[in-house]
């Protein structure tokens, strides 16, 4: 008695729960790996899973076992040269002992010190955001209504002549004509038949007044049929176009970072996470996102990501140099009519004495009118300085498009991000 059952279709992902339990249990380990991966990877490269290793001792499931020592007898196969009574030096690896008991032991000599496995992309991103206490990145519509695109949305009865839908209008007219003429035609046919009948009669029996009456009726009906208009304003149909706000498909994000001596690696890591979130966010809203990295101390420079986050060049701080450079790059390469422009600036807030005023000027006059959004995060546990104050006046001027927050530690990144990007009331 045997049954065959095809189980292939069902019970997929049965071990997902157990797998999740495992990941939860080793959250801290995995988070560490993921954090390293985030710092190692470029901002655009978040589309892969990640390999994670956990020290075997941390995940072992202990059971009572014999330790090394004592006296044991080991039977092994494959003797070629030994005879009874041979004495051998103890191999350095320790006693061979019996196998693991469970199938599939690794038979190459190297001990497995690490338990390695792969996270899927989803699991990886979960952990990336988990570090930021980000449950799920919501798809939020940051409204940029500058560009609208007319979209056809059915037909309407009124509109401008240029949008007349001829086919639909003619169809309406035809229908109306059928509807309006049918009873007249029926009456006409009846009158005609009556007239014919009358006229077929013997001339003696004809009723001339009846004939005249019918003729008049026929004439009247024909006139009325004639009077049914070929087309009426009532028949006209217009293509309906509505203006749909269109997120334009391209965006560019300027990452501006202060790399003066006071920005430590920890500060940069926080900044990187912030930029990363912003990038993932923009990526979900635009087809194409470009990144421009601008770093500055006393002078600003456009660099690649590697240099942006990891180079050690330092100096004093002149923030406006970076803003000027961003302004120039926009003018040169990213015309605001074609690009959605975002600037994210991270700094510890330290600036050259007189420079903060220049920053405000530059923002108010030139940058803000062209940007979709400007975010400034100040990564510092300390009190704010001149730059913050100047920026506050910018924020007051552009409340919808300028946002600034302070970040003290990594845990603040996500809440600040939420705050900065929360849905705004439509304007």
């Amino acid at each position, binding site marked *: 008695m045997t049954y065959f059952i095809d189980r292939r279709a069902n019970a997929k992902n049965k071990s997902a729960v157990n797998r999740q339990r495992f990941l939860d249990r080793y959250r801290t380990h995995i988070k560490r790996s993921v954090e390293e991966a985030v710092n190692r990877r470029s901002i655009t490269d978040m589309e892969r899973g990640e390999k994670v290793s956990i020290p075997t001792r941390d995940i072992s499931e202990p059971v009572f076992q014999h330790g090394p020592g004592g006296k044991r007898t080991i039977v092994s196969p494959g003797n070629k040269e030994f005879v009874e009574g041979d*004495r051998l030096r103890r191999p350095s690896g320790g006693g061979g002992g019996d196998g693991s008991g469970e199938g599939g032991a*690794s038979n190459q000599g190297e001990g497995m010190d690490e338990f390695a496995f792969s996270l899927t992309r989803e699991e990886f991103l979960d952990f990336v955001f988990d570090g930021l206490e980000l449950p799920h990145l919501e798809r939020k519509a940051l409204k940029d209504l500058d560009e609208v695109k007319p979209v056809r949305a059915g037909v309407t009865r009124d509109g401008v002549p240029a949008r007349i839908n001829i086919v639909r209008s003619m169809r309406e007219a035809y229908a109306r004509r059928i509807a309006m003429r049918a009873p007249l035609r029926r009456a006409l046919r009846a009158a005609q038949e009556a007239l014919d009948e009358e006229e077929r009669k013997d001339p003696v029996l004809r009723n001339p007044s009846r004939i005249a009456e019918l003729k008049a009726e026929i004439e009247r009906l024909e006139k009325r049929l004639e009077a049914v208009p070929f087309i009426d304003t009532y028949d006209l149909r217009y293509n309906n176009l509505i203006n749909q706000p269109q997120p334009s498909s391209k965006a560019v994000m300027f990452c501006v970072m202060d790399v003066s001596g006071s920005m430590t690696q920890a500060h940069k890591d926080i900044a990187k996470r912030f930029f990363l979130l912003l990038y993932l966010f923009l990526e979900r809203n635009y087809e194409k996102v470009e990144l421009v990295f601008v770093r500055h101390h006393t002078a600003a420079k456009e660099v690649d990501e590697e240099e942006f986050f990891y180079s050690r060049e330092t100096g004093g701080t002149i923030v406006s140099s970076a803003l000027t450079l961003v302004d120039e790059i926009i003018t040169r390469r990213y015309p605001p009519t074609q690009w959605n422009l975002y600037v994210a600036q991270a700094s510890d807030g330290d600036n050259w004495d007189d420079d903060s005023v220049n920053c405000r000027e530059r923002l108010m006059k030139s940058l803000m009118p062209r940007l979709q959004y400007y975010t400034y995060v100040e990564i510092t546990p300390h009190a704010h300085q001149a730059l913050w104050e100047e920026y506050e006046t910018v924020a007051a001027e552009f409340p919808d498009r300028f946002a600034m927050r302070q970040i003290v530690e990594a845990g603040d990144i996500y809440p600040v991000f939420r705050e900065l990007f929360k849905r705004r009331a439509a304007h």
Partner: protein
Amino acid sequence: MTRRKPIATGSDWNFEILEAYEHELARLADEYRLDTYPNQIEIITTEQMMDAYASVGMPVGYHHWSFGKQFLAVEQAYRRGQMGLAYELVINSDPCIAYLMEENTLMMQVLVMAHACYGHNSFFKGNYLFRTWTDASSIVDYLVFARKYVAECEERHGVTAVEQLLDACHALQNYGVDRYKRPSPISAEEEVRRQAEREEYLQAQVNTLWRTIPGRQRADALPSDLDSEEDPLGLHGGGRYPPEPQENLLYFLEKNAPLLAPWQREIVRIVRKLAQYFYPQRQTQVMNEGWASFWHYTLMNRLYDEGLVDEGLMLEFLQSHTAVVSQPGFDSPFYSGINPYALGFAMFSDIRRMCENPTDEDREWFPDTAGSDWLEAVHFAMRNFKDESFIQQFLSPKVMRDLKLFSIVDDDQEEMLEVTAIHDERGYRRIREALAQQYALSLREPNIQVYEANIRGNRSLTLHHVQDSRRPMGRSVYPVIRHLHQLWGFPVRLESLSEDGAVVRRYQWPLPDEEGKE
């Protein structure tokens, strides 16, 4: 020579072809008197196979992180190509569930059906350990019950609480086995009904046990003159508790741990029951795999002899079979201990050889077996032994020579290892003895028993570890007694005794404040 008329050619399979082969295998198996449970053959995907693997082959299991770990490990090894997935997995249940992977070639599917559905299956049904200790008809039901119960506990008490409890139980599951009493088979509904009863009863028992302890006095405490009905365990008449050392630690904890809630006791019990279910498998690895390999080999050859498979399939089969039953020598880079498939296959094949072509040596060593009916002989061997006694009884000089077995003594008091026996006249008996010992579960694992629960004093629990050949406990002892302490709720002590009964080492949890671990 039969005319070749294979059922199918090539390596593709479909259900009709599988059914046709299965039909032929069933016919041949019947000829060989292989008594089996009905087969339920399930075709599954790679992912499902990894999953089944991860849950130790249980078709349904409760959730636990360690199964997730297993899954990830298997997946990783498989993806990297380090491990060919088992192409078969078979479950001791009635009907006997066998998994075939969809990726297998036709040859593999036929091989697996022969191996699992007729080899393992008949072993499960015939071997005395399985007959005594497992109840194939109710295991799936029990697993369903266990999974549901654990899930309910997670809902009520939180995943973490249940997980910690399971961790602790898993650490002790090898010591959750009853070697002397046979569990009675019951159905799942019955299990649920009894579970409720047990809960009440157990709690009452435990209360009695601890009722008179100072500090845990309860309002409903009994008067001090307990009669024997109130004190069934004789706890208050003095003497040690338990009166006899207990080797089933989980059972002892389930019945006696003072602070466990009823649901916690039930989970201890679930782990214990499952450990019990797998206990025969741990003791019959060589026999079980050997038996299945012996039969897939015999059945495949019969299919070939009858012309039901073509040469191509047979060549593919022989290659695969050889890989499965190969035994690399100790000095080979592929050596990873004795291959149970190789040893078991060699032994069962050897029994057949002894019956069919006995030599003088066989007649001297195995007077009962040599020259007898081979089918009778292999069935007898399969039914009545476990690895330890099977080797003791049937490992012949020929097999020892073929495998070139030798034994080495590793004594930490000696500077050198010593080769104590090789495959020669003088060594046969000693090698056989040593190899049998190597498979004795009682010697593979430290011998640990509950010695005393101090129910009148500090409620501490004392375990004894009786050393064998001076072998000490491994490093994992502390994590394990820590788990034990979680279950017991009061200090736990483990004393290692030398063979003459002297305490050579003490372990305890919690650790003493001052002196550290010693």
